[in-house]
C-alpha cells in the first residue's frame, strides 16, 4: 500500500504504542463496566460501556460507587430516574470506539509494517482471528434478536414473545378461520398523538396516560398496598432507631435524628396499627360507595371495634390525631393514583395504577400500562390497558367488534413447537437443580419436518436460523412444574466467533511452538 512513512497520522495509527494504549483503555473499560453492573443492571451497563462509542457520566458514577463500596465506603445508591436520565455527556471512550480504533490500528499496521514471513505467520493468523472476532461481535450486537417461548404441557406455539418490547393489539374477526390483527408498538403510546391504520376502518387511538412500569390495583389491593407502606415505614424507622441506640456514642446530627425518631415513632406505630385493623374495611367500603361522611363513619366503626377487643378507652382516643393525619395522606395518594375510564373488564376491576420503578436487572421486565382513548364512528371511549394480565377487552364500534390488549410483542415463525413433556430434577435432599429438559414436537410444514426434540441445558435446538435454549422452569401454585420457558435467539453471525477463535488459537499455538523450538535451539548451542 502506498503510504507515506513519515506522515504523523500514519505513524500514530500503525504504532505499537497505540496498541498498548488501546489495550490499557480496554482493560479499564472492562473493569469499570463490570463494576457498574450491579448499580446499573447488567443490560444497561453493557449498553453504556461496551456497546457505545463513549461512556457517559452516570455510568461512570455507577462504576465509581460500586468500586468505593467494595472498599467499605457506603454511598447513596443511584436511583432508577437518575440512571435513565436523558442528560448524559461522554466522559470516557466506550467499547465501540476502542474496537474501531483497534481494528484501524491492526489493519494499518499490517498494511504498513508487516511483511509476511513464516516466523511471524502465527501473529498474522492471530490478528486475522482477532479482526474476525471484533467484527463478529459487532454483527451480533446489530443483528441478533432474543425472545422467549412460554409453554405448558400440550401447548402449541408458532410465535415467541419479546422481553423488552410490547404492543397494543386490536384483533377483529374476518371470518370463521382467520382474524385480523393490528399491532401498535408501545413506543407510539408514549406520545399523545392519534394513531390509526387502514385496517382499523377509521378507528382512531390516542394515548392519554402511559406508565413504563406499573401495577394496576383494585380498591382492595390498593388499600393493602397502602397499609403495607405504613408498616414498612414504621419498621424502617424502628430499625434505624435501634441501630442508633445500639451505637452508643452519637454525633450531633445523629442525636437529632434519634430524637426525631423517638418523637415520631409512637404516631407511626399507631398509624400502622390503625391501617392494619380498622381502615381496610372502611376504605374498601368507601372505594365502592364514595360516601361523604368518611370521618364519622370511620370513628363509629372504630368505636365498635374498640368495644370488641380489650383495649382501653384512653388508648383508643389517643389514636385520633394519628388517624386523621393518615386519612389526609391517604386521600391525596388515592387521588394521585386513581384512574377513570369508561369501563371494560380491566377498568371495572382496576381503579388505581401504582407506578413502579423501571426494571433494571437483566431478569426483570417492565409491565407497562396505559389509558387510551378510542374514537370510533359513533362514540369515543376510554380504556385501561396493561401488560400485567393477558385478558382482552371487547370494544364495540357500530357493527364492528375489536378485542384489545397490551401484550409483549410477538415474533411469528413458519414452524411451530408443541410441548410434549418436561422434566425438572433436583438433587435428593437439596434445592439444587440437576436437570431441566423440555420435550417438544417440532412441526415445519414448509421444510417438511416433524420430529420430537429434547431441549435441555447445554443442548439447544437449532432450526431455521433460530436457536431454542432451555431457559427456565416455572412451578404452578400447587408446586408442580408445569411451565417451561425457552429462550429463542436469532443470530446470523453465531458461527463467526467459532471460526475466529479457531484461527487465533492456531496462530497462538504456532507462534508459541516457534518460540519454544527457538529457545530449545538456543540452549543447545550455548
Amino acid at each position, binding site marked *: 500500500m502506498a503510504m507515506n512513512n513519515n506522515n504523523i497520522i500514519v505513524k500514530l495509527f500503525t504504532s505499537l504504542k497505540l496498541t498498548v494504549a488501546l489495550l490499557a483503555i480496554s482493560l479499564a473499560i472492562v473493569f469499570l463496566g463490570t463494576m457498574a453492573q*450491579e448499580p446499573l443492571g447488567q443490560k444497561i451497563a453493557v449498553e453504556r460501556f461496551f456497546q457505545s462509542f463513549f461512556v457517559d457520566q452516570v455510568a461512570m458514577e455507577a462504576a465509581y460507587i460500586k468500586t468505593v463500596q*467494595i472498599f467499605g465506603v457506603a454511598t447513596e445508591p443511584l436511583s432508577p430516574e437518575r440512571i435513565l436520565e436523558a442528560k448524559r455527556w461522554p466522559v470516557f471512550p466506550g467499547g465501540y470506539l476502542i474496537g474501531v480504533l483497534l481494528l484501524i490500528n491492526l489493519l494499518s499496521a499490517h498494511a504498513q509494517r508487516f511483511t509476511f514471513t513464516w516466523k511471524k505467520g502465527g501473529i498474522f493468523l492471530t490478528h486475522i482471528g482477532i479482526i474476525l472476532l471484533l467484527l463478529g*461481535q459487532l454483527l451480533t450486537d446489530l443483528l441478533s434478536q432474543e425472545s422467549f417461548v412460554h409453554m405448558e404441557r400440550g401447548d402449541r406455539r408458532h410465535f415467541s414473545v419479546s422481553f423488552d418490547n410490547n404492543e397494543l393489539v386490536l384483533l377483529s374477526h374476518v371470518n370463521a378461520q382467520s382474524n385480523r390483527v393490528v399491532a401498535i408498538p408501545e413506543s407510539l403510546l408514549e406520545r399523545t398523538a392519534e394513531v390509526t391504520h387502514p385496517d382499523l376502518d377509521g378507528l382512531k387511538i390516542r394515548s392519554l396516560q402511559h406508565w413504563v412500569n406499573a401495577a394496576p390495583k383494585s380498591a382492595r389491593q390498593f388499600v393493602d398496598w397502602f397499609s403495607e407502606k405504613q408498616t414498612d415505614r414504621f419498621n424502617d424507622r424502628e430499625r434505624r432507631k435501634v441501630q442508633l441506640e445500639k451505637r452508643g456514642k452519637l454525633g450531633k446530627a445523629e442525636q437529632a435524628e434519634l430524637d426525631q425518631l423517638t418523637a415520631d415513632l409512637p404516631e407511626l406505630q399507631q398509624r400502622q396499627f390503625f391501617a392494619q385493623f380498622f381502615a381496610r374495611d372502611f376504605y374498601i367500603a368507601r372505594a365502592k360507595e364514595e360516601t361523604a361522611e368518611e370521618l364519622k363513619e370511620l370513628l363509629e366503626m372504630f368505636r365498635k371495634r374498640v368495644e370488641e377487643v380489650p383495649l382501653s378507652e384512653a388508648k383508643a382516643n389517643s389514636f385520633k390525631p394519628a388517624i386523621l393525619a393518615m386519612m389526609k395522606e391517604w386521600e391525596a395518594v388515592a387521588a394521585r393514583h386513581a384512574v377513570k375510564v369508561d369501563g371494560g373488564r380491566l377498568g371495572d376491576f382496576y381503579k388505581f395504577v401504582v407506578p413502579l420503578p423501571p426494571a433494571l436487572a437483566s431478569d426483570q421486565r417492565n409491565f407497562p400500562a396505559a389509558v387510551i382513548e378510542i374514537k370510533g364512528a359513533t362514540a369515543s371511549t376510554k380504556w385501561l390497558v396493561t401488560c400485567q394480565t393477558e385478558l382482552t377487552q371487547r370494544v364495540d364500534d357500530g357493527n364492528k367488534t375489536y378485542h384489545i390488549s397490551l401484550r409483549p410483542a410477538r415474533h411469528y415463525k413458519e414452524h411451530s413447537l408443541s410441548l410434549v413433556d418436561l422434566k425438572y430434577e433436583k438433587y*435428593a435432599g437439596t434445592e439444587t*437443580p440437576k436437570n431441566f429438559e423440555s420435550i417438544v414436537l417440532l412441526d415445519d410444514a414448509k421444510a417438511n419436518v416433524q420430529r420430537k426434540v429434547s431441549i435441555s*441445558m*447445554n443442548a439447544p435446538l437449532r432450526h431455521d436460523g433460530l436457536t431454542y435454549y432451555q431457559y427456565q422452569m416455572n412451578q404452578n401454585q400447587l408446586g408442580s412444574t408445569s411451565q417451561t420457558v425457552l429462550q429463542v435467539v436469532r443470530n446470523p453471525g453465531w458461527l463467526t466467533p467459532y471460526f475466529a477463535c479457531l484461527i487465533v488459537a492456531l496462530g497462538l499455538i504456532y507462534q508459541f511452538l516457534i518460540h519454544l523450538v527457538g*529457545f530449545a535451539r538456543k540452549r543447545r548451542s550455548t
Partner: protein
Amino acid sequence: MNTDKVSDQKTPAPAAEQGWTRWLPWVVLILAALYIVGAAQPPKAKGDFDYVAFGRLPMLLNGRIKPLDTVARTSLLQIAGQQKVPLEGNGPDRTWGEWDELQKADGGRGLYFRKWYQFGKRPKSLSSTPWLMEVLMRPDVADTRFVFRVHHPELLREMGLEEKGVDQSGLRFYSFNQMRPHLLSLHREKERIGKIPDAQRNPYEQSKYKLAHVLELYVQLRHSLQPNRLDLGPRAGGVPSGVADYAADLKQLARDGKQQAAAFDQFIKESGQHAGFFSTMFQHVGDRLLEQGALPAEDEALAALLVKDLTAVRDGNRERLPDMSPAEREQYQQVESALAAFLTLDPSRQAGLARHLLSVQSRYQTMDSRANLLLIPPMPDDDHTGHDHSDGHTHSWTKTGATVLTAVRTGKMPEPVTAYGAMSTAFVQGKPGDFNTAVLLYVSWLHGNGFQAALDKGRKEHYFNHTAPFARSMYLYLLALLLAAFSWLNLSRWLMRSAFYLIGLAFLIHTAGLIARMLLEGRPPVTNLYSSAVFVGWGSVLLGWILERVFRNGIGSCTAGAIGFTTLIIADHLALEGDTMEMMRAVLDTNFWLATHVTCITIGYASTFLAGFLALVYVLRGTLTRTLSAETAQSLARMVYGIVCFAMLFSFVGTVLGGIWADQSWGRFWGWDAKENGALLIVIWNALILHCRWGRLVRDRGLMNLAIFGNVVTAWSWFGVNMLGIGLHSYGFMDEAFNTLKWFGFSHILLIVVGSLPLHYWASGKELLAGPSQPSA
C-alpha cells in the same frame, strides 16, 4: 557467583558437591517420603469405640452419598474452623485441666486454649467423628463442647458473652449451652439479614449470619439420628435432652405405635384438623410439661395437666389479639379451632392422643423437619428395580424421622433404624463392644442388601479424608520453598537439589490427590472454586518444576514451592465453606466443558501467577540481596516472557471455550458477565505485556513490573469478581477473603514501586548495571 555459573552450564555438575553433602538431598527426600508413608497408613480408632468404622458408614447429604466422616469434618470445619475439639486447657489462674473442672472457678471466665509456648502440654482432644457421634447420640455432652467460633466484639457484647467461652488468641469459642438462649433471636436475625444482598452486609451482620447459620447446622445434625430435644425454654426439671435408651424406645414404638397412630388418624379424620399443625402445637406443650418433670402415668392426671396448659395458652393468645398482625391472627384462629376440637374429647382419649403426639408424632416430625442427614437407605422391598443400588439411587434415601413415622404405622421398624438405635444405646451406656458389633452388623446388612457401591464410596472417601494429600503436599512445598530460598543465601548446592526433589515428591502427592478427587467425584479436576485453587497450584508447580529442570538455579523450585503452598492454603480456607465435592447446578453439569474450558482457563490463571511470582523473585532478590547477577536476571526475563506467552495462549483458548459453552447453553457467545469479563481482563493484560515487549516499550524490569501486576489482575478475576454478587456463575461471597485480596493487591502495587526504583538503589544494582543491558526477547 556459584549459582549463576551453574545456571549457565549445560548440566549440573555433581562434582561441585563434595563429600557427604552429596547424599544430603537423598536423606531429605527419604525423610519426607517416610513422613508420607506414615500418613498413608490406614487409620485406627484410638480408644474403645470404633469411630473409624462409624465414620465410614455411607449416607446422603446435599445430593451425594458420602461417609459420615466427611460430614463430621466439613461440619466441624464450618462451625469451629478446625478439625479438633480440645478438651483441656488453661484456667484463669493458669491452672491446667479439663474444661468441666476449670469452669467451676470464677463462673467460667478467663479460660484459654494451650498457648504455643506450652510445649509440655498435650491437651486431650476429640477428632471430628467422635465429636459428631456426641452430637448425634449424646447431645447433653456435645452441648458443653467449646466449638462455636465467634469473634465480632459487638456481637459478643450483645449476647453478654465477652468474658465467657474459651479464648484462642482473640478468637473465642463457645458451647451450644452458652448459645442456646440466643438461638431464636439469631434465627430471626438470619431471616432479616438474608434479605440484604451479600455485598451490602456489614461485618457485624456477616458474623451474626454466619453464627446463625452454623448453629442451624448444629441443630440439624442434632436431630438427624434420634429425637433429641432442643430445650429452648428455661429448664427446671433437668430432664436430659438426649435419649437414654434409643433401641428400647424403637422396640416399644414398633410394638405399640400402630394402635396409637390409628387413634390419632381417626381423630384427625373426625375433627377435620391438620395433623402437622397439631403435632407442632403439642411439641410446645411437650417442652413445657417436660420442664416440670416426667409426664404423669395416670390418664386423668395427664389430661387435667394438658387441659390446664392449653387453656392457659388460649387465654394468653386472646389477650394478645389486638396486637397481632393479620397473619398471626389467622394462625391464632387455627389454634383456637384445634384446641376446641381437642377439648371436646373425654379425658382418657385426650391422654391417649397426648401420649402418641408427645412421644411419637411431634417428636419425630420435629426431628424430620430439622434434620439434614439422610441416614436411612432405601429399603430393598420398596425399590422396584431390584437390589442394585450401585448407581446411587440417591432419590430414595430418607431421614430417620420420616422413616420412623412411616414405620410406626406399619408396625415394622427398618433395619438401618434399629441399627442406629443399637449404636446409640451402646454409646450412651458406655458399651464399646456392643457399639462396635452394631456398626459391624449394619455394615454387613448394607453388604447383603445391594449397597456395596455406597459402602465402597464411604470407605474410599474416608481414606482420602484421612490421608489429606493436599495438606501433606502443602507442608512439603513450604519446606521446599524454604530450602530453595536458603540455597541462595549460602549458595549451597545440596539445599537447591533437596528443594528440587521435595517439589517432585510433593507434586506426586498433589497429583495423586487430584486423581483421587476426580475418581471420587467422577468429574474433571475443576468443578468449583476450591478445586480451581488446587488445580492452579498443580499447574504452576508443574511449570515451575520444569523451569527448574531446565535452568537449575533454584528459581523454579522457589516459585513452585511458593505457589503450591499459597494455593493449597487458599484451598484450605475455601474448604471452610462446606463440602468441597458439592453437586453441580444443571448448567454446570457437563463433564466435557468442565474438562476443556475450566481446565484451560485454570492453566491460564496458573501460568499468569507463575510469571508474576518469577517477577517477584526478580524484584525481591534484586533489591534485597546481592545475588541477582545480570545473567540470572536475563534468564529470569526469558522465563517470564515464555510463561506469559504460554499464559496468553491458555487464557485466550479457555476464555473462548467458555464463550462457546455459553453459546451452547445460554444462547450467546459473549454476555459481558462478571466472570467472563474477569477472564477477558487476563487475556487483555497478557496481550498488553507481550505488545509492550515487542514494541520495545519495556525492558527486563518493565516486563517484571507488568508481570507482577498480572498477579493482581488474575487474583481479581479469580476471586474478586465472585465478590461482586452479580453474574450467572459467581461462586458466592467471601468477605474475609476480600480483605486478603485487598492486601494482596496493595502489597503488589508496593512491590511494583520498589521494582521501579532506579538501579543504584538495588542491592544487586552494580551487577545489573555492569551486565548486558540488551533485552533478550
